[in-house]
């Protein structure tokens, strides 16, 4: 156990020394890794933001079916079931006349004249309604057409379908999200490959520079782990440092740019989400893990090709 610990300590120290020995290569390898990781995490952040914004906006997307006072319970149930048969329908909520009045009072509580005006009428003139929310924007016209069918003429008073400007905004956001996803995946793959190539080369150079040392190590009975270890540590260092820098950049970006849009309803929750300690820790940890993974993978490939530990 003691020997293993001593060995591990030596391997680590040797790896860290190698990391600092070739400063230009180290800077190049780390910088490219920072760019790749920053692109990857920015892509994730933008995606989550766009997705949340879309779902926030979609909440406004409702079909309201105002019912005549004469509509019977059975007829309303029939219509509800008919609406629910479309998969794009997330929920159908029945709002009774009494509920409608409560909502009205709640909405206009700051305007007592309006509330008083309603009371003057004596009876509740607000209609009962079915509030239909959707998961798929494309189905809105189709679902909206259901209550307008002839068989519901007697129970449906009128139908309101979303606001057109909201619809357009959501459609734009959705297409932007698709574009962001696609572009970021392509960029992330390209940069990850470039950084793998650079780390591969860095480790290859390190192997060539230390060829004599490696040969002697083999001859005096060093284990493969002892020889490989320093290269793995060196490559992990690229991942560790690049992970820290890139998550720093992304988090700084969230705080400096995000704060400007955080007061808009569709971004508030997302901003709070990304600025919570748990998510910041996860972003830093995630970047480091991805960075170390890319580093270790490239270094393993370089060692497989150039270390020739097969012929011992």
């Amino acid at each position, binding site marked *: 156990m003691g*020997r293993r610990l*001593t060995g591990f300590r*030596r391997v680590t120290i040797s790896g860290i020394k190698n990391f600092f020995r070739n400063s230009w290569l180290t800077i190049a390898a780390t910088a490219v890794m920072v760019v790749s990781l920053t692109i990857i995490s920015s892509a994730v952040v933008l995606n989550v933001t766009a997705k949340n914004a879309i779902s926030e906006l979609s909440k406004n997307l409702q079909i309201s079916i105002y019912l005549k006072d004469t509509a019977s319970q059975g007829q309303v149930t029939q219509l509800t079931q008919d609406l629910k048969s479309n998969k794009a329908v997330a929920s159908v909520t029945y709002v009774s006349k009494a509920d409608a009045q409560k909502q009205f009072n709640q909405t206009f509580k700051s305007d007592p004249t309006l509330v008083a005006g309603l009371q003057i009428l004596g009876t509740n003139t607000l209609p009962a309604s079915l509030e239909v929310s959707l998961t798929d924007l494309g189905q809105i016209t189709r679902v909206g057409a259901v209550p307008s069918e002839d068989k519901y003429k007697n129970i449906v008073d009128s139908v309101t379908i979303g606001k057109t400007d909201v619809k357009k905004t959501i459609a734009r956001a959705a297409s932007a999200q698709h574009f962001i996803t696609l572009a970021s995946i392509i960029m992330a793959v390209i940069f990850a490959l470039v950084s793998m190539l650079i780390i591969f080369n860095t480790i290859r150079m390190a192997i060539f520079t230390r060829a004599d040392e490696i040969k002697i*190590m083999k001859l*005096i009975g060093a284990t493969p782990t002892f020889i490989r270890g320093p290269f793995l540590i060196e490559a992990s260092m690229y991942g560790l440092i690049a992970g820290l820098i890139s998550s720093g950049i992304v988090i700084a970006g969230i705080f400096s740019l995000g704060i400007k849009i955080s007061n808009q309803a569709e971004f508030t929750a997302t901003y709070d989400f990304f600025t919570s300690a748990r998510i910041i820790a996860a972003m830093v940890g995630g970047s480091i893990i991805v960075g170390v993974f890319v580093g270790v993978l490239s270094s393993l490939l370089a060692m497989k090709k150039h270390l020739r530990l097969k012929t011992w």
Partner: protein
Amino acid sequence: MILLDRVTKNYNKRGTALKSITLHVEPKEFVIIVGPSGAGKSTLLKLLTREEKPTSGKIIVGGIDYETLKDRKIPLLRRKIGVVFQDFKLLTNKNVYENVSFALEVVGMGNKEISKTIPKVLDIVGLTGKELSYPSELSGGERQRVAIARAIARQPKILIADEPTGNLDADHAWDVIRVLEKINKYGTTVILTTHNQEIVNKLKRRVITIRDGQVVSDKAGGKYK
């Protein structure tokens, strides 16, 4: 200690390097292997350190049968065999102390033990006081003695010296040979290859002559003709 039974080594391109060699070396023996360049001496040593595998035949060193030796056990075998080369193979960016200490670190020896061992081996090879010198500041003979110190620091049972005096003038060559004799006296089996006739003849040890991949003579107290 060392047993080679009808060992043959063929290289695809260079043809046969060793033809059915049979040898037996006792523990604590001092054996000199001589022969012209290309006779197969280096191949023989590479088989012993398991840098090469024989094409056929059996090799047993210190009770380890190379045929059944798994690759991952090779490092453990190498720790039992010290090797010294003609070109020293010292790390030029490390000083004497670090070069020897490196060999001990590799096998996982603790720092305290290392700092106790190094003065002892440097004393054996006569380099006390040179701990902080770099290889470039040493003479050829001194460099070779550092290499020997590195090889014996792990107290191997066998020391293989491949032309250790090849790059040295007569005086320095004898310094190195005397160190090898001293190590042998302490109980380490020494296998020495050399071209130096004077050394072979004065040492009066067992001499194995290899020519064209075959043992042509094997005599105790032999001579190099």
